[in-house]
């Protein structure tokens, strides 16, 4: 059965595009090399955290969009379109069983604690992370576990305190959760799903919590039964409980990835992971098929339309070599990256304006079709979305998930038109 749309990439952009296209009645298939980068992210939706070079977080991202350069994908879509995409996405996620909350006042960024104790701006927060809202005055007790490598409550509490937020730290033994000596965040989340574990954790926590405090824990409160575990713990403690993201693997990111993929599969979308796209066939300005690697001969995947959502450098959609060549790995589409390595980086890792190489990417027209140097679409039935788009460094401006979701949906809407 030939699909109407073949999506290449199973990250947040590909999944969002697939969801939107499926809801509009298209037959969609997704092929991907891996699982995308959700497993490494915070599980929230960052829309726009910082403007280039500005020291303070963006408070009103929808308004800040007006100040972005015209070439930025957000600027091209405009706040109204972006708002529409976000409310649609929030609804779709709700249907998939995940609740995401906007901050108050409306259309502003949350400020939530990062695992280093910095203040993270984000736009739509998972319910469990929203409890860390730094605009609320309740003092925080940040709890970690002795022997857990990926979360450090003292550092978080001290840095929050230095910035004027009431926070203190406490440490429990990891034996409260597991006897296993080489556990990562995912194992711990699974351990907490065993019967009685939440009560044990609550019993160990109870003596530490002072009246009026909210309790911040590493984001390991269950995977499949997250809601029940999170609420169960808060009820048992009689105190608000919130999650703070951890080093990868990110449990909230995995929850989001699983919810989305299941939701898509339930609607008949086939997701095939482990397929590396290595080539394509085209005729008279149309893509006929994408080829993936297999042990014998390339496997051809035909479709009416193709959406490229392979991510940029991090997702594996781009590759580069020591000569300073930079290329898009499936269709060898032209990129806006400077073809001179000397122009790629600034001397400081934390340069507030980021590094030029990461603003490079795929140039698209208003319909998200990759274009040549003259702005003419290269193929009539090829669209692109997500972190491979040019003129944005999503990691630097803290728009990783927002860019993926919004351009993924907008590209799907463009190809439906």
């Amino acid at each position, binding site marked *: 059965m030939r699909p109407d749309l073949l999506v290449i990439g199973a990250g947040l952009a590909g999944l969002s595009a697939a969801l939107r296209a499926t809801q509009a009645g298209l037959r969609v298939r997704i092929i991907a090399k891996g699982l995308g980068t959700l497993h490494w992210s915070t599980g929230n939706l960052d829309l726009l955290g910082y403007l280039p070079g500005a020291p303070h977080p963006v408070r009103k991202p929808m308004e800040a969009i007006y100040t972005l350069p015209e070439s930025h994908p957000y600027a091209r879509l405009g706040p109204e379109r972006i708002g529409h995409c976000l409310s649609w996405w929030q609804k779709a996620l709700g249907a998939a069983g995940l609740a995401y909350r906007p901050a108050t006042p409306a259309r502003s960024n949350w400020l939530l604690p990062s695992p280093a104790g910095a203040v993270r701006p984000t736009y739509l927060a998972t319910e469990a992370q929203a409890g860390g809202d730094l605009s609320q005055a309740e003092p925080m007790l940040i709890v970690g576990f002795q022997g857990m490598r990926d979360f450090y409550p003292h550092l978080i509490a001290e840095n929050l305190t230095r910035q004027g937020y009431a926070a203190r730290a406490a440490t429990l033994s990891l034996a409260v959760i597991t006897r296993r000596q080489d556990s990562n965040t995912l194992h711990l989340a699974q351990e907490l799903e065993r019967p009685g574990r939440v009560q044990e954790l609550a019993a160990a926590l109870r003596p530490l919590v002072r009246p009026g405090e909210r309790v911040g824990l590493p984001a390991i409160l269950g995977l499949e039964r997250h809601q029940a575990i999170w609420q169960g713990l808060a009820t048992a403690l009689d105190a608000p409980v919130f999650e703070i993201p951890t080093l990868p693997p990110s449990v909230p990111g995995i929850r989001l990835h699983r919810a989305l993929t299941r939701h898509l599969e339930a609607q008949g979308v086939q997701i095939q992971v482990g397929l590396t796209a290595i080539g394509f066939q085209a005729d008279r300005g149309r893509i006929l098929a994408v080829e993936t690697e297999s042990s014998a001969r390339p496997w051809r995947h035909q479709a009416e339309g193709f959406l490229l959502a392979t991510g940029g450098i991090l997702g594996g959609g781009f590759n580069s070599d020591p000569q300073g060549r930079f290329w898009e790995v499936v269709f060898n589409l032209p990129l806006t990256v400077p073809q001179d390595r000397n122009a790629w980086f600034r001397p400081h890792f934390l340069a507030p304006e980021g590094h030029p190489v990461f603003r490079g990417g795929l140039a698209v027209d208003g319909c998200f079709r990759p274009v040549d140097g003259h702005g003419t679409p290269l193929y009539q039935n090829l669209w692109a979305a997500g972190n491979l788009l040019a003129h944005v460094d999503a990691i630097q401006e803290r728009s*990783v998930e927002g860019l993926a979701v919004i351009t993924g949906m907008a590209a799907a809407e463009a190809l439906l038109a």
Partner: protein
Amino acid sequence: MKQQTTEILVIGGGSTGTGVAWDAALRGFQVILVEKRDLTHGTTGRYHGLLHSGGRYVVKDPRSAEECIRENRILRHTHAHCIEDTGGFFVVTPEDEGDYPDRFQEACARVGIPCTEIPVAEALRHEPLLNPRASRVFAVPDATADSFLATHATAQAARLAGAQIQVYHEVVALLVEGGEGARRVTGARVRDLIRDEEVIIHADMVINAAGAWAGQVAQLAGIPVHVIPGKGTMVAMNHRMVNTVLNRCKMPADGDIIVPIHTVAVLGTTDEKVSDPEHLRIEPWEVQLMLEEGEKLVPGISQARVLRAWAGVRPLYQEGFQGESRDVTRALTLLDHQQRDGVAGFLTITGGKWTTFRLMAEVTVDKACEQLGTRRPCTTAETPVPGVQQGHYWLGHRLSEVEEHHLQGELICECELVTRAMLEQAAAHNPTFTLDDLRRDVRLGMGPCQGGFCTYRAAAILHERSVTGKDDAQARPGDADAWDVAYIQSPAHQQTLPPPARLEGFQPNLLLRDFLQERWKGLVPILWGQQLKQERLDALIYLHLMNVDHLPVDGEASPLTDFYHLDPAQIGAEPGQPQASLAEGQALNERAGKEKNQEGQP
């Protein structure tokens, strides 16, 4: 002002300086050693890790080759645990000139370097990735050395013999007495960079072992010493593709050696005359050249992932030399300033190689004895340093410890198998002012992810220890606490003396950011392909997840922040590019002229 008095003051905490301190202390002298940063921060910590057989210099520089083979034999005993007995091959590739291999073989025989020609097929059995088109292969007793560990072991031996070793003490002036023709160096004024105070050290004899910085130190006494800083650039590959040191069998030139050291293979090296040992820029052509030349020994090696590039400076010295730095002798040079410049109480030891540091110390302290009017024999050649009972280092050492004691859950740096206990012991026993100090102690952040996961963990663990006052660095296996671990070989556990006083005002945010910047420096020259993808993951962690560029620093600067200062002349900088301001949380100071692109082994 604080005053100290000693018989011998040694300037420089690299292999040579610590060697001098060790030798002099064994001969019963009172010794103080000062180093402006951390031990091995200079050239010692930036070299490729080769224990020379002398084969490399045997045709061109037989005197240096003789020194190498003699010391090679000695160090295998005195510093056994710092050495991995890899052996070395000299390989004749299709490009290598006609009569050099025969001359090489003859010269080895003349100098006394064991050299056996082996069939190419046998060499390929040992090293399957070796160029199959090689025509001849000679086996020599090259080996690899962990210069961090060796220097710490030597320093510890010196301490046990009574020497005082003071790191982060920078010499700001030499004390000179007497008039023209009868001048004498009587000590030094030293700045303690951590406590930000000055100390006067009075000494009967001052020994300048500052390596590439020796000229600057001698200048403080008005003595011209023209060290020729020869920059060598190296790149570390993400795998140890070979287990034997591979040399091209030809006149030494750029990029003709591959050294398997710990978990990586190092391609080296260039030799560029530079004007200033602090200012090292790695040029793209240097990295390219290493990879292209590496191909000739191991075809395909340039397609592997490169972890990092760095440069060190050879302290080359040749009186009156004018030519290329590649042609300067590698033999050691001892300058007797009384004889040479009419300044008593002051010696400079320079030139030489890591392999010959013990010999350099010996001739220096012999001369010091002569000038101080005493006769005391050198005993370092027969005196092993602490740790040799472990025998030679081998690659599986850490992994076997981790597996035997089930330490998988303790790994703070998975790439280099650094456990929490190693980190805590290193921090408890050695002055730790930057995470880079810990890197030199335990190899933190030296693997493929270049600090992606361990930077946060290490900074947070050190912070936790300072906040909770918890110090389980003495923990040993068998203790009640389930999280205690075994001791693992690293410089950190060399220390058996009382730990140094801990500093107040620990700043985890600066520690974290300084280390991220320090790692970045060595990545910039080699970021492409898979390593660029890795870097994006690190950026995702530190920017998107942690938001470390917006951590509070309130304009504070660690004493070392400025060591990592980079000026816009760096790769990729645009003229007129504004430097990050303090408000951006980049605690930079205004002093230009700091090091760039330097570091230790990968």
